[in-house]
């Protein structure tokens, strides 16, 4: 019952690296300050280079990425991460630039920023954009702080933010970090925002309503115009959580739907790799009236030259050190320039096509919770299963398919009594053959669930370890 050897258990050997074989210490080491002793030991391993390589190569092989097979996690948009974009990020002109170089020696960064800001504004239907936020939730926080600054400027304190019960956990968490009180808007029976309830909740203390559309249930909020009107009539603002933007590129823009603030998850919609949890990037974009409050810096073009703009007195300030995840944003830039307008629209069309195709093909086993067309992801019910949605998903692992999103295993939240549901987002980069294969495997597991419950209960059987049940 010992876990895999960790790097610290490996054989003590000649250190992997040899920074000092060429003697890099140019002069005597100075004396430490009087008040602190020199370090005597850290506890780092001393491992040979080949052992380091073998160890981490093995760990990588015991992992699963989009490069290994379908990854149909809901609301995570695990689409193909183009290799060419990794090559862009590795170009020394970007990888080896220091962020505190004089701004005029980073012209390529500002040029890329200006272009990417522009494309994000166009895609989202917004007027201004800041690329600094480090991730989706960070973009949410930035957006909410912009909203806060906007009302502060009007001396109109509004301490409340509304979020739907199906919202990503980051929405209420970001609202709390931005100093807002959260109130939960219920869903109606069709899985959409309960408009009547929303109208009642739109009191003068409401700063904003945060919405992702399509929702985390995979459904388009078809009352979005009414929602926007109601929110704006209350003097409140409408926030767009970009997590599900992959369904709508080039089809309908958040700005045109009435949203005032948007964040984009470039590691979802714009294909930058997740890297096992990050780094991503979460640019935030707003309508013109809110532009002065955007975080700093942003890039602007003046006299044809892209440059950094820090002189923004109404800005909410900095969200992090320096100016954003350049190496990630560069990948997003590469993606957008490869896709073009038609490519982006097609991507969203195909994402929705794929989700509906899977929903239809799986419906006799796992009927959709809401019997209608979905958008880029579909919420399926596991009620017909003998075991459980969880065990069904664990058994998929034995066939090399990553489980869909389940309650408590992922960053999505299912409201109410949807404990047996699973959320599937195939993305547009899965071929028909891949989808058909997934259906075939789902069928096989469904049949096993019907005929050999014990087998499914004991899954996964093919991995290094058996099922892990956490009590936290």
């Amino acid at each position, binding site marked *: 019952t010992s876990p895999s050897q960790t790097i610290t258990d490996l054989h003590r050997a000649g250190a992997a690296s*040899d920074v000092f074989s060429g003697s890099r210490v140019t002069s005597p080491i100075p004396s430490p300050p009087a008040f602190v002793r020199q370090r005597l030991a850290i506890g780092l391993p001393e491992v040979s280079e080949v052992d380091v390589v073998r160890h981490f190569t093995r760990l990588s092989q015991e992992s699963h990425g989009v490069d290994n097979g379908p990854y149909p996690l809901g609301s995570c948009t695990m689409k193909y991460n183009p290799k060419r974009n990794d090559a862009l990020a590795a170009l020394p002109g970007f990888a080896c630039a220091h962020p505190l170089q004089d701004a005029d020696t980073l012209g390529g960064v500002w040029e890329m920023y200006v272009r990417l800001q522009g494309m994000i504004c*166009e895609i989202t239907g917004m007027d201004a954009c800041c690329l600094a936020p480090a991730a989706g939730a960070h973009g949410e926080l930035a957006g909410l702080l912009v909203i806060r600054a906007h009302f502060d400027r009007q001396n109109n304190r509004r301490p409340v933010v509304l979020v739907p019960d199906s919202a*990503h956990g980051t929405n209420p968490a970001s609202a709390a970090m931005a100093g807002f009180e959260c109130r939960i808007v219920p869903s109606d029976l069709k899985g959409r925002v309960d408009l009547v309830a929303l109208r009642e909740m739109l009191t003068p203390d409401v700063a904003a309503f945060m919405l992702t559309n399509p929702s985390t249930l995979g459904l388009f909020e078809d009352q979005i115009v009414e929602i926007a009107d109601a929110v704006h009539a209350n003097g409140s603002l409408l926030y767009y959580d970009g997590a599900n933007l992959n369904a709508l590129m080039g089809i309908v823009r958040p700005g045109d739907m009435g949203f005032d603030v948007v964040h984009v998850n470039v590691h979802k919609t714009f294909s930058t790799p997740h890297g096992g949890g990050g780094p991503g990037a979460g640019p935030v974009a707003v309508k013109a009236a809110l532009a002065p409050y955007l975080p700093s810096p942003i890039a602007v073009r003046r006299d044809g030259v892209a440059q950094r703009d820090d002189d923004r007195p109404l800005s909410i*300030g900095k969200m992090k050190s320096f100016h954003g995840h350049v190496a990630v944003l560069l990948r997003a830039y590469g993606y957008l320039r490869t896709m073009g307008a038609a490519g982006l629209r097609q991507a969203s069309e*195909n994402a929705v*096509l794929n989700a509906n195709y899977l929903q239809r093909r799986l419906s006799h086993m796992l009927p959709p919770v809401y019997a209608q067309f979905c958008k880029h992801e579909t919420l399926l019910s596991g009620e017909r299963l003998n075991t459980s949605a969880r065990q069904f998903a664990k058994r998929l692992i034995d066939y090399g398919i990553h489980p869909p999103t389940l309650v408590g295993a992922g960053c999505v939240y299912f409201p109410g009594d949807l404990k047996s549901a699973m959320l599937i987002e195939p993305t547009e980069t899965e071929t028909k053959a891949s989808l058909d294969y997934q259906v075939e495997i789902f069928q096989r597991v469904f049949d096993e669930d019907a005929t050999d419950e014990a087998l499914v209960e004991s899954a996964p059987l093919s991995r290094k370890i058996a099922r892990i049940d956490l009590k936290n």
Partner: protein
Amino acid sequence: MNQRQHEFMLEQKPVGYNVHTGSDVQSMLEVMGLHSIEQLFEDVPAKVRLRRELDIPPALSEWDLMRDVRAMADMNSTVLSHASFLGGGAYEHYIPSVVDAIVSRGEFLTAYTPYQPEMSQGLLQALFEFQLLVGRLLGQECVNCSVYDGATALAEACWMMCSASGKRRVIVAQAIWPEYQEVLSTYLEPRGVTIDYVAQHPVTGLACPAAVSVLVAGGDIAGVVLQSPNALGVIEDVAVMAEICKIHQALLCVCVNPLLCGWLEAPGKLGADIVVCEGQPLGLPLSAGGPYVGIIACAKPLERYLPGRLVGRVHDLNGKLGYALVKEDREQHVARDKATSHICSNQALNAIRVAIYLACLGEANFMRIAQANAANAALLCDLLTALPGVRLLRTGVHFNEFALELPMDAMQFSLRMRKLGIFAGVPVARSLAGHERGLLVAVTETKNRADIEAYARHAGACLDAS
């Protein structure tokens, strides 16, 4: 056009990374009894639909994209085109090639958060090893699985102190990076946290224990924040500050350059309750500013206030040990508005970089690098302060970065040095108003004696010309 091509042209060609041929689309639609994808979007109100293509630049082939971005890359100077002595929170360090070779592997690069532990044991173990090695380095028991960067790590740590203490006031020794000050404001002011800055000692550059002591004695203080080396390059006395905090039951958070822990005792061992750092010096490329990795390490009692993910050792149903995400009840996807933080995407791949970096170097080399940083900075400092009119701005002990007062404007000096192929340093004025002649100079193990002497030589010339 030949026949085969003609056949292709008849089909709807997918664009970009789209994969479906026209016949794929048709057959999928048929399964659903549809005739066009458009039908799947009928619930989108017509009045808000986009009735045109997006107005973005035309699609580029891979080759054209490379040319396009290479042209932008060529608009940047770099630490390869110039000998760089820039620091200020991000440092040029040597990164073993092994690090890139491993993190570029698709299994790591294209993985999602390991919510399904059975399918992600390797990824989880790599992240566990990050926590393990970094915990040892910083001298703390618990390490989270990364936040965005050093600045947000510090902000999150301040909120940890507020949550743990129930108080809403934090004392910060002034000489933290200016970006960190800004991020503290951004993160903490909306939540009603007051930040009191305490000036450094005007001669030594150290935080003043007496001043902090007076404030902490007030009793409504959640904790104290210290950066070491601070924004003037001076190594702070963590132990004395820890003592003051202990007396008044305030928490102490130290923001440290992690490399310093290879030379001097770790802040966690000197009494800091929370140690945060920007992990960039541990194997991350400069990348013009990011992505880097924020690290928060703390003592066990504070663990439940940590933001973000934690990997732990757990048992599978047969009792075998493995790895999984643990204590998720702190996180936003469970606790929602009661979560310790909103963080979801973190910097996992960079955390793995750190683990590989530390494993590559090993104990002895890591310590030597730290010592070499100190030695190299001391050498350049000696050479420069021997120049007429140049003196150390603060007398405290430095690590790999020191602040000078020049006999001329620092920006102007830097511009002259730049023309000679040297990035001379970061202006002190950005963190300490009114010090237009102050320059913060960083020297790492990437510089050898010749590089350092060249700096000094050119500096002499640039100053003479003034």
